[in-house]
């Protein structure tokens, strides 16, 4: 009789496994394609993002070939580029502009927004706050498929006969509004706008889900002050996304009306071939205001998740609590707020009122304060830590390095007077590629190396990881550091060639160096791709918690099934950074270990907390533990 009602723990376990199997092996389509499981969706985002990163990287090498070797005969690229090569075997000048445009669009939106935020917010939010899944699995699935559709449209635009959009990733009108202006402003631009509209829908669906999950689906005991910094970063990122992306949608909508329905929001007094266009009364500056109101926060949409990931990785691999947890959260919040009031620093040379310019200079320079707080905290976390140099750790330190070197040049560019000289030169290109591009890319790589064992249950190869890191790290500096000099010398960005100007020919060798470094950096990424794909199938099997980390995702089984935890969701008792706590048995105490189990390492106020609970009868739980 008793046997029928009592389950031994083993039986329960078997039962759970069975239940999970039924979910996992439903059907190929529901498991891997139209999955509502946040982990599968995260992997879909990651792999799509990686494909895009490769495409974006190849495009950049194509235009670097033109810039570094303007005289070279590229006819060996005929199979790839076809009609986009001129008779002399050089890249068509208009296609060069399309390459630059598509490189920017792909990297900013498809790789570093969807690929980064989409992957890690989806993967880590439910696992780290202790939830079975996202608030709405269906919306989450929609979010990925809108992104996929948007990707298909953007990819299609690369192959049409008039070429993809070519007005720069910022698609300023009138260049982008008038098909007569440049061949890329025809069908290519239309596809760009359609793709971005779908992308914005995807991003909003994702962001709404992330915020809702963080606020409403935290496990017991997971107060805001016990959230890992990754979650804080994703949370702020999603808030910025919800506030900023609708504005881009508005800007794009007005542009669509200007292009297709003949309105004049952005167009006025334009003559083409001596003929006046009918459009009257518009203002191209209006577009810049709307665009940069998204565009600047977008920088932090890209950067904040990377900062969150690296905070977690640096604390774990320094075996030390993160230095200044509250300062880290506060500075991210401050950055998020400031990101909305600095957009006009992209527009200093549009004839803006100098007084307004000085206000935006001030607001822009204030961003240096929270940024410096973050760098200080990273360095002080590393300071005297028991550093473990996993590839993820190296990439995180690389992020700190780029965030610093790239951030410092921001002080120059944010100054409305200095910006007059530097605006639209390679100095700007160097600045944002270091601080936003490379820093975020390194954060993403760090995240992939660190969470790969939880994603695929296997380990990536460390040695290949080190080779990948050093080649990429040195390569990135070789690509972008010389660009500062080229920019100060006055080279404008997006120019097809400078060889016709005697003044600029002195920098040809530097440009060649940059191009060679770019090719090496891109080649190094294939090491990563090999490592990634090989490890998915043949990698060493990973333990459940390979990095001895504290956060909740490492309390799941090696391959968490649908619902993440086979039994009950763990309860959280402490913050996520109890590394090397004095007196503790191990150098880490996971978040789900109560203070009463670690009397040897508790601080007085932590013991106090247990006592407080003792005094209050209602809050005591007596756990009956059998031996």
């Amino acid at each position, binding site marked *: 009789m008793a046997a029928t009602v009592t389950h031994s723990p083993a039986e329960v376990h078997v039962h759970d496994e069975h239940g999970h199997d039924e979910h996992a092996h439903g059907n190929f389509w529901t498991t891997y394609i139209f999955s509502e499981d946040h982990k599968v969706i995260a992997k879909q985002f990651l792999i799509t993002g990686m494909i895009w990163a490769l495409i974006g990287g190849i495009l950049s090498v194509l235009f670097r070939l033109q810039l570094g070797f303007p005289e070279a005969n590229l006819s060996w690229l005929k199979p790839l580029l076809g009609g986009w090569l001129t008779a002399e075997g050089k890249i068509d000048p208009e296609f060069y502009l399309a390459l630059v445009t598509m490189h920017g669009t792909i990297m900013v939106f498809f790789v570093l927004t969807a690929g980064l935020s989409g992957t890690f917010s989806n993967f880590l939010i439910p696992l780290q706050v202790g939830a079975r899944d996202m608030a709405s699995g269906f919306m989450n699935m929609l979010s990925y498929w809108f992104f996929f559709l948007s990707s298909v449209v953007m990819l299609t635009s690369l192959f049409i006969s008039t070429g993809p959009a070519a007005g720069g990733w910022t698609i300023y009108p009138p260049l982008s509004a008038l098909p007569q202006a440049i061949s890329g402003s025809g069908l290519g631009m239309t596809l760009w706008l359609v793709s971005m509209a779908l992308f914005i829908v995807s991003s909003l669906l994702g962001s709404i889900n992330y915020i809702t999950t963080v*606020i409403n689906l935290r496990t017991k005991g997971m*107060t805001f002050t016990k959230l890992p910094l990754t979650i804080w970063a994703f949370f702020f990122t999603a808030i910025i996304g919800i506030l900023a992306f609708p504005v881009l949608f508005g800007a794009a909508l007005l542009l669509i009306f200007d292009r297709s329905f003949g309105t004049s929001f952005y167009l006025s007094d334009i003559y083409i071939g001596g003929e006046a266009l009918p459009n009257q*009364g518009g203002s191209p500056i209006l577009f810049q205001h*709307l665009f940069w109101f998204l565009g600047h926060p977008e920088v932090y949409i890209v950067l904040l998740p990377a900062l969150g990931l690296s905070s977690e990785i640096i604390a774990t691999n320094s075996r030390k609590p993160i230095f200044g947890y509250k300062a880290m959260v506060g500075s991210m919040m401050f950055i998020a707020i400031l990101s909305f009031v600095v957009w006009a620093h992209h527009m200093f040379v549009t004839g803006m009122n100098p007084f307004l310019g000085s206000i935006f200079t001030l607001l822009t320079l204030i961003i240096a304060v929270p940024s410096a707080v973050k760098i200080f905290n990273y360095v002080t976390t590393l300071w005297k830590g028991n550093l473990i140099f996993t590839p993820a750790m190296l990439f995180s330190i690389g992020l700190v390095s780029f965030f610093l070197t790239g951030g410092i040049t921001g002080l120059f560019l944010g100054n409305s007077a200095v910006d007059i000289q530097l605006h639209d030169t390679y100095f700007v290109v160097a600045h944002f590629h270091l601080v936003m591009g490379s820093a975020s890319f390194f954060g993403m790589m760090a995240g992939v190396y660190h969470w790969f064992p939880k994603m695929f249950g296997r380990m990536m190869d460390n040695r290949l990881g080190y080779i990948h890191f050093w080649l990429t790290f040195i390569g990135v500096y070789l690509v972008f550091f010389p660009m500062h000099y080229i920019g100060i010398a006055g080279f404008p960005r997006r120019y097809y060639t400078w060889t016709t100007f005697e003044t600029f020919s002195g920098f040809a060798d530097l440009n060649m160096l940059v191009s060679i470094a770019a090719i090496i950096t891109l080649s190094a990424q294939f090491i990563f791709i090999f490592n990634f794909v090989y490890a998915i199938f043949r990698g060493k099997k990973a333990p459940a918690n390979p990095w001895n980390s504290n956060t909740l995702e490492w309390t799941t089984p090696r391959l968490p099934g649908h619902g993440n935890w086979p039994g009950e969701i763990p309860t959280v*008792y402490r913050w996520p950074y109890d590394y090397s706590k004095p007196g503790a048995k191990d150098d880490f105490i996971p978040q789900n270990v109560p203070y*009463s189990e670690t009397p040897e390492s508790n601080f007085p106020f932590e013991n106090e907390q247990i006592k407080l609970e003792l005094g209050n009868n209602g809050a*005591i739980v007596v*756990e009956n533990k059998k*031996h």
Partner: protein
Amino acid sequence: MTSEFRIVEEPKQPLAMNAKKFAMWLFLVSVGMLFAAFSSAYIVRQAEGNWVDFSLPSLFYYTTAIIVLSGISMQWAYFAAKKDEFGKVKTLVGITAVLGIAFLVGQVIGWRQLTESSIYLVGNPSGSFVYILTGLHGAHLIGGIVFLIIVLISAFQMKIHSKNLLQIELCVTYWHFLGGLWIYLFVFLILNR
């Protein structure tokens, strides 16, 4: 079998509200940002001059009254659902949907009034903005009417009662948001001629 009693502090479930309601509010925030962007674009563009003045269609006053009425009937339907008055819920949600459609028809006739005073979508941005703002609001309202029809269907299936209010609560929130948004847009357009 020895058993050991241990005292563990009990962590509380953190503050949370219904996830769907919360998501709805976030959606409203993003729609709000879209219209905030257009409002500021309107003001910035107007400040640059070259701005054609015209009067708004008189019909907009009537459509405003219609949407206010629809807000009242929607709220009433919600109260009825709370009291399990099934018949009333069906009628009132139906009335709200009809009023919503009437509002849309009124807006389109309002556009015709605009064209009669030779203000077209294509032309000076002052006119184009009116079309874009009303059109975009209308597009969101179509979504609201679809939602109302879904609510109406579940009302006929007796799925809306005092124990199952989530769907109608979401619909009420969205509908009031659309009403409030229209009143904001109308006042904004009147004040910024």
